[in-house]
Every structure is written in structure tokens, then in C-alpha cells.
């Protein structure tokens, strides 16, 4: 009957924070042609550097809150690079008119 | 002059041929009422027929040199650690909480008290309108004799570890000669404290702080145009007073004190031996080893010989020509802790329990 107990709201699950925290200000600073080092200085280290796809960095930021005063957060940002540096950006805080708003989903 | 006081009383060394007791008459003996514990230089001083003495608890008193009758007594209720400096303007003592006090020689009234930078562990030098004081932190203060105001301050470096206590400055005409803990001797202008010359009597060497100690704790002896100074674990040196040139040096670890007469320089060393050197070229004349093992005070000239007090509490008479131990004399059961003072035919002695005596040796 442990599983039933597990659903009890009172059960304490430590707040889980994952990935690299980036916010709108950081994304606005991104410009085409930036080197990987510059991108890293602005956003922090890439959360996922997929072994099977090259020239692509994925930033993920997730917060599963435990206490009331923290709200859930889930952000995604995908950057692709080409020969001369940063090419496209897709995900949160990248609205249509962002210089890097790439085409391919 | 004087050397560091005698620390512990050892039993007297076994002498092969114990010399006879001299016929001594005690002119007067009076209690200062204040002990003089080891570790402090509280030497009695003489000035125009009066004996001035100070005790560790702050007592200062003056007695008539002939009768021993007390002229005045003053209680400064502060620990006195360096006394007694006498001069025409007053009687000066140094205290443990870094103060110099000048008293009126006639009434004992306090003329002024002046703060200095650290504790004063040796008698101040009084004369030529000034009071010159050496302090534990390597400082030399010249104070105006009448007001006590600081005229100038000279600072020397202090090694990491130095011997307990320090020497007294010696006044010469227009200047003062001071030995420091770093093995250097300096002559300073009395007027403005400029350095006339500096001589390095001994150079610290060795690996540990202990081996590198070269304190000039024995007061330098000035006679004629020469200054004789000696360093602990170092050398004794004959130096020209005019320009600080070192005439000669001899390897001796000087501790007790230095005294000089027209032909020789007499030095007591760390191991309790008394050396005599020719004052012109430092050639050794004789050496008395009989008192080895004791710690000896500075030698004093008395009649045509020398007297020295040892940490066994005996007063020793020594021949100047041959360094022979001629006679020894012990007071009832009290120990000497400070160098005796010679007043013509008489010897003034202050023992550890504060008993002041004036004695003299009957002519054979």
C-alpha cells in the first residue's frame, strides 16, 4: 500500500531543479555569428550536447516546486551553429522578430 | 655602569686555595624596605656625599654616604625596573609601565613623569641638561632635564629574540653612546639625536634565533678617546670615540660588564670568567677562571684591585696585575643581586632583600 501513501500531498519530495537557468535578457543578447565561447558566457554551459547531432546546443531549465512560493518553470532553447558561428535559435523567449528566429522547427 | 643583574644564586664554586676573609668594617647598614628581585637593574648611585637607591615596589630613598642616615624617601607606587640615574638636575628612575620619573635630589619630590614607548629596564643617564633613556623596544629617548619633554627619539631594530634586559646609555661630552640588542653600538648627538657614527661590535650568525643573539647588554666603558663595548655571544671591541673606528676585537661572550683603567680593559663573560685585555691592542693580559659557573656583575675598580659580585652572593677582590683572587667576603645570609658601587675607600652594596650597606676594607 506504499504506492497509495506515495500520492499523499504531504509526502515530501525535494524541489527538483534541472538544467541551465537562462532568462529573456540572456536570449535577447544572442546574435548571429557568435562563437560557442561567447554563447557560453551569456547563457552558461549547454545542458545537452547531443552526441548524435552536431552543431546543436540545447538549453533546458525545469523547476518542480515543492513549496508554495516557488512556481513550476519549464524553458527550452535550441541553438544551431554553422561555419561562421551561431546560426539559429528556437524556443522560449525567441519571438518572431528575434534576429536568430530560425526557420526549421 | 652595571651589567644585567644576577639571576639565580648558585652555591659557591669549590676553590682549591680558598683566599682569606679580608678585614672588613661595616660603616652602616640600613634597610630600604623594598626588595630588589632578580631580573631588574636597581643599582644604587652616588652623588655629592649621598647614596640613592630604589626598590622594585616603587620606593626611592637617599642616604648620607658617611653616616647612612636617611635624607628622604619617596613612594612612586609603580614597579621600578631601571634605576638609579643621578645627575646635577635630579635622580631618574624608569618604570615597568614605560614611564621615566625625575626626582629632586635634595627633597625627593617628583619633578616630572614622562611616558616613553616601552618598559625601561636599565638606569637612565642624567647629565648635560638631559635625561637619556633606553627602552625595551630598541628606542633611545632624550628628555629635557627640567621639563621631561621629549627632545628626540632614536629607534634601532630589535631582533626576533633578544636577551632579557638592555644596557644603559653612557653620556659623553655632547653625545651619548648606546649599545643595542642587534650587536651595534651607536654614538648620537645629544642636541638633535643625529647619528655621529655606528659600529657593529658583533654580527648575528647561526641558524636559530638563539644562536643569532648578540645583545650589547653590558654598558659600554668610555675612557679617554676610547669606547670599549662587548656583545653577548660575540666579541669585545676597542673603538675610537671620535669616529667609531674599531681598533681591535677579541672573541668573548660578554655578559656581566666592562670596566677600564689606564692600561687594561676588564670584562666578565657569560661563563663567569674575568678577562683582562691590553686596552691599546686587545692582547690578553690574564684570565680568572676560579669563579667559572657563576654569573658575575660588572667589575669595579677598588683601590689598586678590582671587586666583582658573584651570583653566589660573595664579594670578590681580584688583583689588577695578575688576576689573582685575593679575598672573598659574604654578608650574613643575604645575596647580592646588583653590582656594588665604589665610593672612594668605601663600597656601597644593595642586597636582594633591600639591605643597603656601606663597607670598607681595612688597610693591611
Amino acid at each position, binding site marked *: 500500500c506504499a504506492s497509495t501513501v506515495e500520492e499523499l500531498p504531504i509526502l515530501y519530495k525535494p524541489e527538483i531543479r534541472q538544467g541551465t537557468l537562462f532568462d529573456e535578457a540572456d536570449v535577447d543578447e544572442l546574435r548571429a555569428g557568435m562563437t560557442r565561447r561567447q554563447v557560453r558566457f551569456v547563457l552558461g554551459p549547454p545542458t545537452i550536447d547531443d552526441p548524435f547531432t552536431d552543431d546543436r546546443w540545447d538549453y533546458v531549465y525545469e523547476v518542480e516546486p515543492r513549496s508554495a512560493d516557488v512556481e513550476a518553470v519549464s524553458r527550452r532553447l535550441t541553438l544551431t551553429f554553422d561555419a561562421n558561428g551561431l546560426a539559429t535559435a528556437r524556443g522560449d523567449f525567441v519571438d518572431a522578430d528575434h534576429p536568430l528566429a530560425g526557420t526549421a522547427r | 655602569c652595571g651589567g644585567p643583574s644576577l639571576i639565580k644564586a648558585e652555591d659557591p664554586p669549590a676553590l682549591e686555595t680558598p683566599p682569606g676573609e679580608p678585614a672588613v668594617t661595616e660603616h652602616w647598614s640600613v634597610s630600604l624596605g623594598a626588595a630588589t628581585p632578580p631580573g631588574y637593574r636597581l643599582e644604587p648611585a652616588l652623588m655629592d656625599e649621598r647614596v640613592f637607591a630604589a626598590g622594585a615596589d616603587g620606593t626611592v630613598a637617599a642616604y648620607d654616604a658617611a653616616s647612612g642616615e636617611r635624607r628622604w624617601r619617596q613612594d612612586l607606587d609603580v614597579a621600578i625596573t631601571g634605576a638609579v640615574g643621578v645627575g646635577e638636575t635630579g635622580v631618574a628612575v624608569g618604570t615597568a609601565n614605560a614611564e621615566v620619573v625625575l626626582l629632586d635630589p635634595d627633597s625627593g619630590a617628583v619633578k616630572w613623569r614622562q611616558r616613553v614607548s616601552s*618598559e625601561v629596564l636599565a638606569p637612565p643617564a642624567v647629565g648635560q641638561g638631559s635625561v637619556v633613556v633606553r627602552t625595551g623596544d630598541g628606542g633611545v629617548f632624550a628628555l629635557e632635564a627640567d621639563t621631561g619633554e621629549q627632545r628626540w627619539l632614536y629607534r634601532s631594530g630589535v631582533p626576533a629574540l633578544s636577551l632579557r634586559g638592555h644596557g644603559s646609555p653612557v653620556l659623553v661630552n655632547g653625545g651619548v653612546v648606546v649599545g643595542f640588542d642587534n650587536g651595534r653600538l651607536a654614538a648620537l648627538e645629544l642636541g638633535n639625536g643625529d647619528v655621529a657614527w655606528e659600529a657593529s661590535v658583533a654580527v648575528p650568525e647561526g641558524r636559530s634565533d638563539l644562536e643569532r643573539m648578540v645583545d650589547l647588554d653590558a654598558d659600554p666603558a668610555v675612557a679617554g678617546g676610547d669606547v670599549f663595548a662587548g656583545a653577548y655571544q660575540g666579541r669585545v671591541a676597542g673603538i675610537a670615540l671620535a669616529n667609531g673606528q674599531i681598533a681591535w676585537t677579541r672573541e668573548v661572550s660578554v655578559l656581566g660588564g666592562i670596566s677600564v683603567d689606564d692600561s687594561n680593559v676588564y670584562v666578565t663573560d657569560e661563563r663567569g670568567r674575568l678577562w683582562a685585555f691590553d686596552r691599546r691592542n686587545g692582547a690578553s693580559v690574564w684570565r680568572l677562571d676560579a669563579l667559572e659557573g657563576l654569573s658575575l656583575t660588572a667589575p669595579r675598580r677598588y683601590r689598586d684591585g678590582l671587586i666583582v659580585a658573584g651570583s653566589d652572593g660573595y664579594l670578590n677582590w681580584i688583583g689588577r696585575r695578575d688576576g689573582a683572587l685575593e679575598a672573598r667576603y659574604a654578608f650574613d645570609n643575604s645575596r647580592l643581586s646588583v653590582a656594588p658601587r665604589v665610593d672612594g675607600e668605601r663600597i656601597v652594596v644593595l642586597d636582594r632583600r633591600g639591605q643597603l650597606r656601606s663597607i670598607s676594607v681595612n688597610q693591611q
Partner: protein
Amino acid sequence: FTIEDIRIRGLDRIAEGTVLNYLPLEAGDELTPARTSDAVEALFDTGFFDDVSLLRDGDTLIVEVDERPAIARIEFIGNSQIDSERLREGLSGAGLGEGQSFDRPLLARIERELEQQYFALGYYDVDIESTVSPLPRNRVSLRVDVEEGEPASVQGIRFIGNRAFDVDRLRGVFEMGPKAWWAVLSQRDKYSRERLSGDLQRLRAFYRDRGYADFSIESTQVTISTDRERINITVNLDEGQQYTVGDIELAGDLIYPRETLRDLIAIDSGAIYNQRNITRSVEAIQEKLGERGYAFARVNPVPELREADRVVDLTLFVDPAERVYVRRIRISGNESTRDDVIRGELTQYEGTWLSTRDLRNSESRLGRLGFFSDVSISTPRVPGTTDQVDVEVDATERLSGSLRAGVGFGSDQGLLLNLGVQQDNLFGTGDRVEFVANSDDADTVYRLSYLERNHTMSGIDRRYALSFRDRDADEADLADYGVKTTRASYGYRIPVSGSDRLGADVTFEDVALEFSDPTEFQKDFQARNGKSNRAILTDLSWTRDTRNTAIFPSSGARQRLGLAVALPQVSDIEYYRFSYEQSRYLALNEQFTLVLDGTLSYGNAYGEGERLPFYENFFAGGIRTVRGYEANSLGPRDENNDPTGGNLRALGRAEIRFPLAQDEDGNNLRFATFIDAGQVWDRERDNLRDKSDISFSGLRYSAGLGLVYYSPIGPFTVSIAEPINDKGNDDTQRFQFTIGASF
């Protein structure tokens, strides 16, 4: 010329093979001047030879060596302060050990080295001479004579220029100083330069914490007496003025809103300038920044002295540096504990920013597991990056299991035969299994319990326990009746916060009584309830544990609130037992820890007119509750003067614990001075002789000395206690101890 063959001359003990091994030349090589010098140098480096020369005989290279004698024996005479073993290590460390080749200049250097070791201990009067005597077969024996002399001791410390504080107060700040006559063992009077600079540092802090912002030490003189035994220290200081704090500014990139950081500042303007509070505020702000990933944040306080009105304005410059992310968490040192058991306790995850708060409470959670004697977490930077670190968790495991078997003697229980297997960290899974078979004159207990940790991912633990207990009360100096209790319980421990846990267990209990010479009360009880009683109890408990470690904690507290209720209908007697326990730990300084325990237990029946079954009564007295009194002897007594226990119990204990030995065993042994208090009351019984009213005067007190030692075979406790206000009929027992009993 090309070398046809190599011959070696002058070898005494060293084998040719070894020499050839080092010689960078072989038959057939071309011999050039450069190579000869290399060869000679190579042979010299071995340290075996005093002299090496190469000769030519036709095409054969002749290596002429003059072998250094080997050291056969090294003796130390006269050394008591430093034992020969350490001296020998010092020598062989520097290349002069037994079996190594002897080298005279090295010996002189070694003598200096040994002298330095003695100077460091304050033995300035030491004198070391070594004599070398030859032995057959080109070997030598080395004799080192050490004359230690007396250690220099500090006779007096004098302060010049202290107006605000008197000399004794300042001497108190110093650790070094003249030794009081009674402090025979103390090292207080040992002089060393490091201790002096440490003391001067303490003096600066002492003044800076009391407002003397520009306090300075002008000079210090250390003087030694001619016989090198007495040292005097004179400190010339300039106190300066006492300052108050002006306005306090926060500058730089604050990350948090200004107010959150401002109320972390432990010093407010107008107060006396206090360096320690400023440092505390700086650390608090750096901590706060650390919680948001700025692990390398720096806050530097810049004071400006306004001398005229003696005020210091303070600006705290906050520089968060970069937010730092965790690349990987590496756990090491866990020889038997599984990696996930440790990783499960860490609230810091990989791939997210580093939070110093998470690291701190991960460290204390690991400490509370009780499996480790030491846990250290470090965050080295990932090479080549400025924004990534690895978290290294190095745990040193403790013998967390204990096999207790054999005969013991408990002052409370008499002869104790027990076999107990308890493994806290079963096969490294973190689960705890315990099998105990105890028998002494009063009790025979068999207990099997299993705690499965992290039964579910979310950290719920499951536990079951089965126990059978046959208690002959008479032997335990209680009323003479026998109780056979069997219990089986099953339940969970549910974490509800970082340090709070809820416990929910269901226990089936079967109690069989037999009376040999029942008292009135027992006859009446048996009439009403018969000899055997069954009950099903639910046991709810709430525990909050903020201790920093399980073994001898020095901070935090552990509280437990428990309520066990015998469920109606299914239990013969409907009763409940409530208990609240709390132990609080405060570290007075690195050695001394103050422990405050308190327990309150109350039980009663809620059924019609019943009372708490007498065999469920609470007892007090004995080594676990109130030391100095016989086991279970406190509280009301029945007609033949046997203690009956009661349904209300109050216990209190104040203890100061300190380790005695500093060696590696030091951290599982503690001495303690304590004061115990406790009493048991029975509100319900009417026919008791002395109707006990609940009052503080009823409490019994005792004070004494105790020792707790976690030996490899289990905990071992001894206590000597003096009852303070024992009344006539209390049975006191000054000396009590237990071996291998589990807590």
C-alpha cells in the same frame, strides 16, 4: 672508442647487476666525453658511492667506484620529548636510514634538522652530538646523543599602552602565558613564534570586535634569560579610538532584492564597530548568493574611518562572479555502501547550478545516516572552464554494523546473555537488519527487525519487527507477576520535509499474564480482564531531526511525538500511550557539547472506566532514564513495597560532553558530566499508599560523570551518579553500566 666489455672494480656489498642497471652505457656503445660525464653523474645520483671514475684498458671500460659504507644501526640516546621512531623517520626521510649509504655532510645537516625540531617545541637549550663508529663489511653504526635541557617557559607578558582594558583581561586573550601552579599538564607556557603570532592575531581581533577599528600593535619584544629557561614578552600597542558604525551601503550586483541582503547584515549603524559581526554578515551574504548558484561570489567590506567623529562608514561590495553549474557528482571512499544510497541523500543534482545550501544539508543528511565517520564535500573547478565544477563527495565509512554476543553484566539487568546482530548498512543497501536475543534474570527478549530504506523512490522507508518478550517482573524488582508479550508490527516512515518524518505502524500485541502472588490491584485487574489480552495498536509518530551527525552530534535537535492507540473493538483493553521526546545539542566550543534531553509520557484508557494496563506503565530510574537510581525504582509502590510505575512520566537530562583523547579513536568516545531528573506518577490508582501529587518536588535529581564509547562491538556506557534528593524508600545505585546494549 667503442666499448667491448665493462668491468667494475671496488664493489664491496653492492651487486654488479645493480651498478650496471644504473649505468647508461652498454657493451657496444660509442664512448664520448658527454656520455662519460652522464655515466659518472648517474652513478653519483644513486648515493651509493663517494667517488666514481672511468678508466680505459684497451677496449674495456673499467668503472672504478669507492663505495660509501651502509648504515647498519642508528641509536638515539637521551631523547624523551621526541620518540626515537619519529627521529628515525626524520633521518630516513632525509636519506639517512638503516640500510642506506652514509654521507657525512648530510649528517651535519640532519643534526641541524633535529635541533630545529626541538626549538619548535621550545627546547632552546638542546645540544645534539652524533658519533659514527665503523663496523666490519664497510658498514657503520650511528649514535645520536641528545641532551634536551629544560624547555624555555614564558614567565611574563607585559602590555604597554593599554588604557581601555586591564592587563589581566588582555592576558586572558592570549593562549600562551605563564602557567598557573596547578596546571601541571598544560602547555600554556611553551613559547613558539607561531603561537605568538596566533596570539597577536587574537589580540587584534579582540580589539577590532570592540570598536577599535584602527588598533595596531607597534612592536613586540621577546627576551630570554641568560640560562635560556625564562622568556618574557612585551607588547607595545596603540589602541586608537573606539568607533561606532556609520551608514552601511551595499554595492555591486546584488542578484537578490536589496532588502533580502540588507537584513542579513548582522550589524546596524550606530552600534559599536565589531569586526566579527561584519565577517558574519559577509559570510551570510555569500551563503545566500551560493544558494542561487553563485558559489564563487565574493563580498568585501570597505570601511572608511571618519576620525573626527569616530565613525566608520561601511560599504559592502558584492561581486557574484559567474553562476556555476555542476558537471558531475563523484562519490568515493564508499567501500561497501552503494553509490545510489549516498546519491539519494544529496539534494544537489547534476547538470544544474550549484547550491551551497543543498551541499550543506546534503552533508548533514549523510551524517545523520550514521554509516560514515566523516563526510567531506568539495567542489573543484572543471579544468578549462570558469562556469563548471564537479562535486566530489568523499565518505569514510564507519563500522556501522555490530555483532554483539556473549555475556554482559548490566547493573540494572544483572547477568546479561545476549546475541545481537545489527547491520546498519546491510550489504551497502542502507537497509538495517537487527536480530537480538537477550536474556537476563528479568527478561528474555527475542527481536527481529528490518528497516528497508528508500522502499519507494520518493524516500519512504518500510519497516517490520517481530518480538517476543518474557518478563519476570519480580526479578526486575517490580511487583511479582510474569508477562509474556508477543508483538508484530509493520509500518512506514514518510519524509514530509527535509528533516521531518511521519511514522505510521500497525502493531499486533498479545499479552499473557501469570500471577504468583498478586496484589489486591492485580487480583481485581485479573478479575476484570482475564489473563491474556490482545490489542491492535496504531502508532503514529512525527520526528524532526536536524542533528548534524548521528554519532555525538554537536548541533541541531531531534524531537519525536508519538501516539499509540489500541483500536476499539479489536483490543481487549482500549488504551493509548502518548510520548514526546526532545534532545537538543549545542556546541559550546570545538570540544564541549551541551546536550539537553526532555521526555514526557502519558497513558490512559479511553474505554469504559478502564485504566492503562499496569504492564504498560512507564518507569523511571536506571541508566537510560535517571542515573543514580535503581532500575524502574522511582514512583509509587504497592503494598509489598514494589514499584508499580505509573501512567505519567517526566524525565529531563542536561549533559556536557567532551572527548578526552584526541587520537583517531577520539571521535567515538566521550566523557560527560550530567544532571538527571525524573519521576513517575500514577493519577488513577486510588489504593496506593502515597498518593503522589504532580509537583516539581516530586522529581528526583542526580548528578554525576558518564562515559559513552562506540567500540567496534557496539556501544558501551558507564555512569557514576550521586542522587541529590533521594527520599527514604528510593533505592539508589551509584555505579551503573551496560555493555553492548543497543540504545
